[in-house]
């Protein structure tokens, strides 16, 4: 596995549960010893015993990593002291504002909602102004509102020049946030690049799913003979079609199918996405 992340870039590690995302970032954060290879962050090598290199990294673990019997301010102050921040009070106040917890700063975090705890979890990772922020599936188990707030925060951090390493098994999060994505499975990177580059790996074809009744096999034959249609197959009363620029081709497809006497009950057009890329590369779905 080899990749690099530039300043201001959000790099995604996309893979299903158990693909090796958390293990990879644990090594990058100096929690686990790598069997081989080298990890360099901000020019400093990272090992489990690194001290200076770790100062450049902000880790937001997948599990909440806060003290429930300390207040939000006390949590931030404690971790700020560990990083030796000289402007600790000011920085803590600033972060409390960023994560929207200024009004609840003196409350014990065990009294917080799940979303508030998540925001504090991220705030602690940001506290020491890291050059690389590692977020390990930060939206797992988060309500939609808090999830959106977290994604907006990540976008803002990236725009401020921070390098972000973001792991997720949510394809839509990777597509929204990440400048580049590495698709990871069984501890190996299967493909890496921008969304466009990855989509091109599956030929850039749209997927059209038409459900109906009648002689769908005959309808599929008609569709298959049309120009720009790469593939058409029938299963479970649906015709699956792979075609370039499906939106333009759709009227011809519908006319051709109904012309065979088949009737259509629904039509769905999907542009190629990372889910399709993952399926293409690994033969399994992201949520498997």
């Amino acid at each position, binding site marked *: 596995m080899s990749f690099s992340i530039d300043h201001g870039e959000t790099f995604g590690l996309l893979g299903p549960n158990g693909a090796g995302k958390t293990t990879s970032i644990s090594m990058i954060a100096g929690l686990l010893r790598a069997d081989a290879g080298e990890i360099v962050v901000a020019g400093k090598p990272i090992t489990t015993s690194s001290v200076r290199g770790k100062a450049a990294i902000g880790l937001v*673990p997948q599990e909440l990593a806060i003290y429930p019997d300390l207040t939000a301010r006390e949590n931030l102050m404690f*971790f700020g002291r560990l*990083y030796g921040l000289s402007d600790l009070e000011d920085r803590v106040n600033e972060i409390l504002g960023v994560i929207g917890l200024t009004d609840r700063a003196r409350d014990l975090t065990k009294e917080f909602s799940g979303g508030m705890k998540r925001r504090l979890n991220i705030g602690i990772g940001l506290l020491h102004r890291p050059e690389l922020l590692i977020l390990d599936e930060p939206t797992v188990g988060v309500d939609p509102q808090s999830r959106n707030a977290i994604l907006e925060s990540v976008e803002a951090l990236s725009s401020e020049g921070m390098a972000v390493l973001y792991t997720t098994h949510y394809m839509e999060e990777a597509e929204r946030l990440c400048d580049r994505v590495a698709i990871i499975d069984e501890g190996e990177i299967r493909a890496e690049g921008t969304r466009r580059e990855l989509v091109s790996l599956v030929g850039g074809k749209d997927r059209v799913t038409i459900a109906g009744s009648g002689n769908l096999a005959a309808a599929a034959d008609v569709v298959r003979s049309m120009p720009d249609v790469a593939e058409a197959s029938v299963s479970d009363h649906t015709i699956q079609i792979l075609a370039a620029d499906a939106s333009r081709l759709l009227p011809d497809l519908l006319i051709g199918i109904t012309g065979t006497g088949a009737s259509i009950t629904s039509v769905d057009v999907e542009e190629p996405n990372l889910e399709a890329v993952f399926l293409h590369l690994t033969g399994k779905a992201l949520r498997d």
Partner: protein
Amino acid sequence: MGAASKIAAKDLRLRIRDRSVFILAVLVPLALALIFDAVFGSALEQGELSLEYGVVDEDHSDLSLIFLDTLRAIEGEGVLTLTVFDGRSEADAAVESGEMDAYFLVSEGLGAAVAQGGSGRIEVVGEVDAPTSTQIATSIAEQFGAGVATAQLSVSTSAAMLGAEPTEEQIAAWTEAAVAAERPFMFSDVSAATRQLDAPTYFAAGMAVFFLFFTVQFGVSGLLEEERQGTLSRLMSAPIGRMSVVAGKAILAFVIGIVATTILIVATRLLIGASWGAPWGVVMLVVAGVLCSIGIMGLVASAAKTPEGAGNMGAIVAVILGMLGGVFFPIGSGDDLLSKLQFITPHAWFMRGLGDLADGAEWTAALPATAALLVFAAVSSVVAVGLLRRRYRG
């Protein structure tokens, strides 16, 4: 302030907020020490040897004077107190009033009878509620009698060998030598190993060292709590030495252990009059005891998977070591297996150290026990750190 101190300060704040530390570290041991002292204190005190004997010498012979000298020699060793009465009535009154445990009556004619090869009697009159003391007095008299019999044998043997009766001076000298050789009891200087604490100090010390092993768990099991609540990964990813986290937990355990034990010492001194001995000796023992408990409970925690597991295993270890170490009831100092086995526990060494400091001994008297506790601490700590390094090496 180093990273370890910052972690310890954070944990201390959490522990103060969680009031259970006060309950387990101070209130429970203090309450138990008070209860044990109230319930079992008098029973423990009865175990102390303190003999009040009288003697009535109606004979006034050389032999009766030798008997008096023998009793005075034992008195000089600090175990019995001897009072010489002029007559039986006075001695009877002292025994009946409980002032004396027993008295020896040397009847008139004893010396003359023995000198002529006959027999005489030394009577022991004991107080009915002091059977043990009376039995000891009887034994003293019997042993003296055995010595006299040996002397008589020497006299008759000498007479046969010399072909002449020995002089009175020779008879007296042989008798004295025989009695000295047959000393009824050897009240040797009480060794450090057998010295006993008084009841308040015993129970206070026992509860202090017993609960110390529970108290330090607030610190040493903190590593497992960090792991469970996910904060360990955040600490490990911070720019601090890896062992700073472990050191932070050890510092907290040390602080809580020292503070809790100090409070117990002061409180039991004020409330039940526990006498802990030379302050510097007590300081040495407490510090060594705390380090030892941290090492052993750290070893337990390093082998456990969860804080609950560490707590359960720790409790088992603490109770077994405490029972074996004699924190609830004295194990004794004989040659039996249990008496020897107790010294595989730090508890027994802690109690012994305090025993060594009893009766106004210098602080240096606690050095052997302190050294033993430090050996326990060193060995257990090295193993615990080794296990933790393996566990968190990444």
